């Protein structure tokens, strides 16, 4: 086997050095009744050739662009990833290293994460950011737990317009610890309704996503003011499409205390939903309550600039059961992809790219409206929006799938009151020609 370098001679000589005769002897220290008597029942090892054929066949069973025309986001977005990112992320000095415990030989990872942290603070308008969260959903759960730790309150309010799967993850994390979650309804215009939110002093945090699950841009500023009418209640803002902040105001400038969400959009392949990149940022005053690893700038013994993991006293390997979180990893490689992606776009590029996304989505929205579809929520959007189709659209949708066209996502399973409502998305990867084709199908 090409991954195992030992020759028979090596094995025999090494065994002799240890004072043993056979490889089985190495396991004599395991009591006999604990040792497996049967062999592993696994397929025969595949050659590289056979493995490639096997995987190619499986990959061919997946519906992907450009073969399929997919107008779907809902937390996972198709954006073009520059070749530069793909090539650089393949440098194995990055991907075969571990968490940078030995800073002298990990400066590449450390500087890259420091740069990533900075990029995230600029994008979200926050002070500090980590690179440690698994995905947008668990980042939101961790943000709410952080607010609970800071405020010592046991209840949180979560908008119903936060991605439904994120809310399910929040439920899993918070209910395990006995915290209460109150869901906030939404208004006719597709934004969160705070009018029923009384007794703010009972809430550790109020969480709102913008752009929200319907694609609508929330009025974070006035919501933040309302939430901060209680001095302690924290305003947690979430997102699934961070590219939006290339165009619209960032959450930090609108009063967010903790901004968190999914970074996949920025240079990470969709890969059937994972790995993603949990983005997580807060105001400086909360940094010691933050979960996850942080990289800080310092100097070496000669005074030369360098970077280290820092503020570790919050963490599980030191604090054990009193730690801010049990997280012990970085989402290192995904954070690196995002940093590389942003290095490519720059400030100028991300602005243009975000504007193009917005304009494409508006084009599609207008086209569908003209084709007779109803746009139920009259609120500005970024690159996603909800459409109400006629009740027989189900058959049309199925027919379009056969024509290799995915006309968004039916949101009725998540919002039973919204039957016939579909969430659609357009990014820079959806061409006008494809959008016109969809509009034409809807018209007919």
């Amino acid at each position, binding site marked *: 086997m090409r991954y195992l370098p030992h020759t028979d001679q090596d094995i025999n000589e090494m065994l002799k050095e240890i004072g043993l005769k056979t490889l089985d002897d190495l396991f004599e220290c395991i009591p006999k009744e604990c040792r497996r008597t049967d062999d592993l029942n696994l397929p025969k090892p595949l050659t590289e050739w056979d493995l490639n054929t096997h995987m190619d066949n499986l*990959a061919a069973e997946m*519906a992907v662009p450009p073969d399929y025309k997919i107008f779907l986001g809902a937390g996972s977005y198709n954006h073009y990833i520059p070749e530069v990112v793909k090539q650089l992320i393949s440098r194995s000095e990055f*991907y075969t290293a571990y968490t940078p415990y030995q800073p002298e030989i990990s400066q590449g990872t450390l500087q890259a994460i420091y740069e990533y942290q900075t990029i995230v603070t600029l994008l979200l308008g926050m002070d500090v950011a980590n690179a440690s969260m698994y995905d947008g959903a668990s980042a939101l759960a961790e943000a709410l737990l952080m607010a609970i730790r800071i405020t010592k309150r046991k209840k949180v309010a979560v908008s119903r317009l936060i*991605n439904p799967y994120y809310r399910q993850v929040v439920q899993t994390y918070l209910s395990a610890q006995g915290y209460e979650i109150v869901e906030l309804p939404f208004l006719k215009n597709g934004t969160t309704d705070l009018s029923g939110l009384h007794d703010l002093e009972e809430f550790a945090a109020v969480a709102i996503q913008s752009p929200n699950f319907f694609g609508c841009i929330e009025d974070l500023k006035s919501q933040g003011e309302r939430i901060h009418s209680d001095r302690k209640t924290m305003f947690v803002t979430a997102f699934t499409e961070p590219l939006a902040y290339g*165009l619209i105001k960032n959450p930090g400038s609108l009063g967010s205390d903790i901004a968190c969400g*999914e970074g996949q959009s920025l240079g990470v392949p969709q890969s059937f939903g994972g790995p993603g990149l949990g983005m997580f940022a807060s105001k400086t005053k909360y940094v010691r309550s933050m979960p996850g690893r942080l990289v800080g700038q310092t100097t070496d013994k000669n005074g030369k600039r360098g970077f280290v993991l820092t503020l570790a006293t919050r963490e599980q390997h030191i604090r054990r059961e009193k730690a801010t979180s049990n997280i012990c990893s970085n989402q290192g490689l995904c954070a690196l992809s995002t940093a590389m992606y942003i290095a490519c776009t720059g400030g100028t590029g991300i602005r243009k790219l975000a504007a193009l996304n917005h304009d494409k989505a508006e084009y599609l929205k207008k086209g569908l409206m003209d084709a007779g579809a109803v746009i139920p929520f009259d609120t500005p959007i970024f690159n996603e929006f909800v459409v109400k189709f006629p009740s027989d659209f189900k058959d049309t949708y199925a027919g379009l799938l056969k024509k290799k066209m995915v006309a968004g996502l039916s949101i009725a399973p998540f919002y039973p009151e919204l039957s016939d409502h579909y969430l659609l998305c357009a990014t820079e990867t959806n061409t006008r020609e494809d959008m016109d084709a969809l509009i034409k199908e809807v018209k007919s």
Partner: protein
Amino acid sequence: MKEPLSTTGLILNEPLLWEKGKKGRSGFSLPQRDVDVFPMDDNLLGNGPDFPDLSELDVVRHYTRLSQWNYGVDSGMYPLGSCTMKYNPKINERQASLHGIAFSHPMLPAELSQGILKIMFHLERYLSEITGLPAVTLQPAAGAQGELAGMMMIKAFHQNSGSTKNKILIPDTAHGTNPASSAICGFTPVPVKSNELGVLSLESVASVMDEDIAGVMITNPNTLGLFEENIKEISGIVHSKGGLVYVDGANMNAIMGIVNMDDIGVDIMHLNLHKTFSTPHGGGGPGAGPVCVGKDLEPFLPVPRVVKKNGSYFLSQDFPQSIGRLHAFYGNVGVLIKAYSYILSMGSMLKKASQLAVLNANYLKERLKGTFHLPYDRPCMHECVFSDKLQEENRVTTLDIAKRLIDYGFHPPTVYFPLVVHGAIMMEPTESESRETLDLFIEACKAIADEAKQNPELLFEAPTKPKVRRMDETKAARHPYLAG
């Protein structure tokens, strides 16, 4: 002696990204604009993030230079104990980046996603075969999230039977994540001491076992690299009081095809695909932490689960007793693909991998005892733990030894862990290293031990060869600069 491994080389300085950019440059090929501008409300428009603008070559040089300041498994031996830094096969990278996989949307109808669902279904079956536990979830995104899932399931199991058990036994040899994971679920961790042989004794578990104990969380093989030989009897005691047995499977690389977890009374365990199953560590992530459980715990597995019906595969949320969802979608699929590819490449040779990992660790242990103090002189599994006790008289510490190893061209072992060994040096060579590489490493360790006696200054000053010298970590923590 042959020429040493480490040498000097040309390493280039590289500023921070924003020290480099210049407005007006671009490293991005923006697609053709084929729609009109649709103006956005001025009240909503932001100023746009102030990222530096760089050219494509600027970006390429930046990250190429950064990468050269890193040490990875592809650079050399990386004997970081409990982290299983084995070779990450290149072919696995190809599979995960196949167009049909990397560009697949997670919310398409199941009939358009059969390829990946099939992979997930079969990977679950393979992990079940390897651990001996019948049901598996692939959803946890890391070992720590796997632990969390496991603790949640233990809690749900007890709640379901109306019990209020609220404590978890955790040995002093456990990973730091274990007490943190149990505390997050509202359990109180109860520490249990390992005995003079470095393992849990029946008596120590029996003495703290009562009706309030929801379960025990054992790392096996443990962090001393020893097999918990009383595991079967311990499981018996824990089960007799209604508790469950959780095994932290971070060290599964020692016992694939050797131990069946179901046979020894384990109810639940997590695996680290980025350790045992060769997926790269990525500078800290992403990993994957699947959890394998016995029949009694299966109803509590996270949703959605991959289900097969009439020859096709789909995702089902229809498990009313489930602890719920842990990931926005289905876990780190890109990582799962690599582990699947590894298992198909290895097949039953996985057992051989475990045998050779254990052979390598025992070889290191035999050859280095005497050079470094070996607190538990017993046959080890995949790793062995030394200490700096023999170097103490020269004021040389574990940290100095670790830093000097860098100058010799090796990544240092895990240091100061496990906590039960003062000044621990924890070495896990993995099966990937050849005898020649091990011999070179042993030679370096012996040379360093000599230096500790003859010229300890060399160790205090180490490392001298990397781009930077020892870092001022106190300064970093006292005056945190976390963004530029």
